[in-house]
């Protein structure tokens, strides 16, 4: 095995798997262009080939030299402390990665599951709205359960979940909870400063973007969140 670790094999496997997927998918658009003999797939396939070569080169590098960097100066220049932070926080185990990816599925569950339950993707459908409310409530309960003990994992998933909910629940309803949630994930526990900062940030965002710059932020689709968002916009503008 040389100086290979299981992580190195997973890394190489990921890149080569991605190459295979991208190459197979490239047949979907493998069409001739009269004035260009390489066609639409020539350039992407060349990149895929180079990715595969680089992935194999990386695997050989790991086999021969383990985690050593290519050059001392370059290593120092590109080191932003993120590898070290991961190492210190013991966030490099397979278990950590698996549980992180499991948590990261939450936003995508919200984006897909309500439509399956309601059997429709029509935006105005009442059944779809109810399904979205129920699924959102369940997922929020799961997030609240995990937030105390898996801060980094939840910190990765939390903004994505916020983004997934924005279309239905609107910026004006979700933003205050998002601000408090992020502060909590970064270790803040004092209620009064959290509420004060939340009010300051939310107030700044509304004044700056809604009142001054007239940026139309998402108001949501589901009642009563849609009405709340519309009311805030009406009052400010």
């Amino acid at each position, binding site marked *: 095995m040389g100086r290979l670790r299981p992580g190195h094999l997973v890394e190489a496997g990921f890149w080569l798997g991605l190459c295979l997927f991208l190459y197979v998918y490239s047949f979907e*658009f493998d069409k001739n*262009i009269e004035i260009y003999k390489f066609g639409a797939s020539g*350039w*992407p396939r060349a990149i895929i080939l180079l990715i595969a070569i680089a992935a194999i080169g990386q695997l050989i590098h790991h086999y021969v030299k383990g985690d050593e960097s290519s050059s001392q100066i370059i290593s120092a*220049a590109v*080191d932003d402390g993120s590898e070290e932070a991961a190492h210190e926080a013991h966030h490099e185990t397979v278990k950590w990665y698996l549980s992180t990816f499991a948590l990261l599925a939450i936003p995508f569950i919200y984006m897909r599951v309500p439509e399956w339950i309601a059997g429709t993707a029509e935006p105005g459908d009442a059944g779809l709205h109810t399904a979205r409310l129920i699924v959102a409530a369940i997922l929020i309960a799961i997030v609240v359960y995990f937030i105390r003990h898996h801060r980094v994992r939840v910190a990765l998933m939390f*903004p994505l979940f916020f983004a997934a909910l*924005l279309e239905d629940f609107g910026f004006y309803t979700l933003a205050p909870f998002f601000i408090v949630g992020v502060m909590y994930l970064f270790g803040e526990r004092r209620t009064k400063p959290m509420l004060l900062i939340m009010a300051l940030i939310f107030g700044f965002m509304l004044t700056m973007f809604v009142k001054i710059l007239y940026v139309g932020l998402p108001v949501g689709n589901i009642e009563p969140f849609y009405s709340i968002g519309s009311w805030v916009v009406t009052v400010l503008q």
Partner: protein
Amino acid sequence: MDAFNNFLQGSVTLFSDPINILIFLGGVIGGMLFGAIPGVSMLTLAAILLPFTAHLSAEQGIMLFSVMYCTGVYGGAITAILFNIPGAPENAPTAFDGYPMTKNGQAGKAVGAAVMCSALGGVVSTIIMMAATAPIADWAISAFGPPEIFALVFFGLAVAASVGAKTFWKGWLSILIGLMIAVVGLDPVGGIERYDFDMPYLLAGIHFIPTILGFFAVSEIFVQAEKKVRGSYTAPKLSVDFPSLSELLAHKFAVIRSIVIGFFCGILPGIGATLAAFMGYNEAVRWSKTPEEFGKGKLEGVISSETANNAATGAAMIPLLALGLPGGALTAMMVGVFQMHDMQPGPLVFLTSADLVWVVFAAMFYANCSILLIGFLETKTIINLLRIPFQFLAPLILLLATVGAYAVRGLTIDIVVMFLAGVVGFFLRRSGYSIAGIVLGLILGKIGEQTFAQAMQMLHFEWSGFFDRPIAFGLLIAGFLTLCGSIYGAFFKKTSAPSSTGSDSPPAPPPPGGG
């Protein structure tokens, strides 16, 4: 003389419009603050501001970014010297001697040297930029066709891949991911849909603004979330104490050497201010008669690093404005500003928007001068602002990024893409890949494919056509040599130990961030 007149004209345009002055001051202070606050960088601020530059004119947008670039590179030196926490990677070598100077009670002198040398390096670099960019652009109009531009893109990517990540292979993988992201959408010749997965959103390609916001602003927040276990810092008392003229003269060779190193690192695509600072510091150690004193609080260490990183800023604008090719992450974002105003950076900008170019040049010159003024007057205020706990800053940054991503097209999917890019960026960064490399690949990918297609059509699909074009051929050879050198280095040269376990001399950089 023409250049001087144009510079005066640019200065008048800059200071005759109150909005321009406001943007200039905002850029100077914003760049310095975001450069100084550990956990974020000027790139974070640039990524957040990028979508909103659509509300500004093209010259105001580019000016804002170039001013932030100058002051942001300096800003990180303050925390590097005072707390051993470089505000940005390009200030990491400053901490090697700056922090020991603080411990020796010489913080004021170290900050003063950083202020003076950053301003000096930046001003000299800007003057050379003003003198050199227009002639290079003039020459490029006649000498650079699609084959040359493609060859230059190849050379730039080869250099960027060789220096941007922990290993050569990871550097290439980073660039190639960027190139692959750029493939999504319609192909530039036949308009055929590629990798759209039957999603209408992907037909127009993955928008670079949410991607850049995710990779830079959001992934930085995630990295900081992981670093929170390390605790925080407290701000010491400080007075700025400029080095005397004799002290500065004693280091004149270090200053000149670092300006030369910084300038060449800046002008070569893909290297940038970070490597300039490390090379400047490294050369100072190598040339010194007392190398053993470095790392223990030697003024020359601070001078070399800070002169080199600021000298890279003016030089980095030359390939962008003269040839239309960005050399680093921030200049890649400037390409985004141009594109948002339906403009292409490159030699023609000098013909079509000479005002823009000279306002930007003037703004960069004054931004570097203002480092001296603000560094002297406002360093204490900046230190007080650094007391803002990161847990209060993080939600603000994430919400600004959210609004920025949404404001571009009014699509919530852009916000999802941004946060997804943030998660991907987080995992790639902790594995030693280069985020800047990905963004460079993304921006240069579209230019590269388009110019390659045009070049091949021009050359009737004969590869040998490149041999008849000396510039294109030379650049391709230079790219291949860089590539071969890197491959040789990757397999046959003795390398350093992994960074997490420390390394020998020169001293390993302290971890940036953590506050």
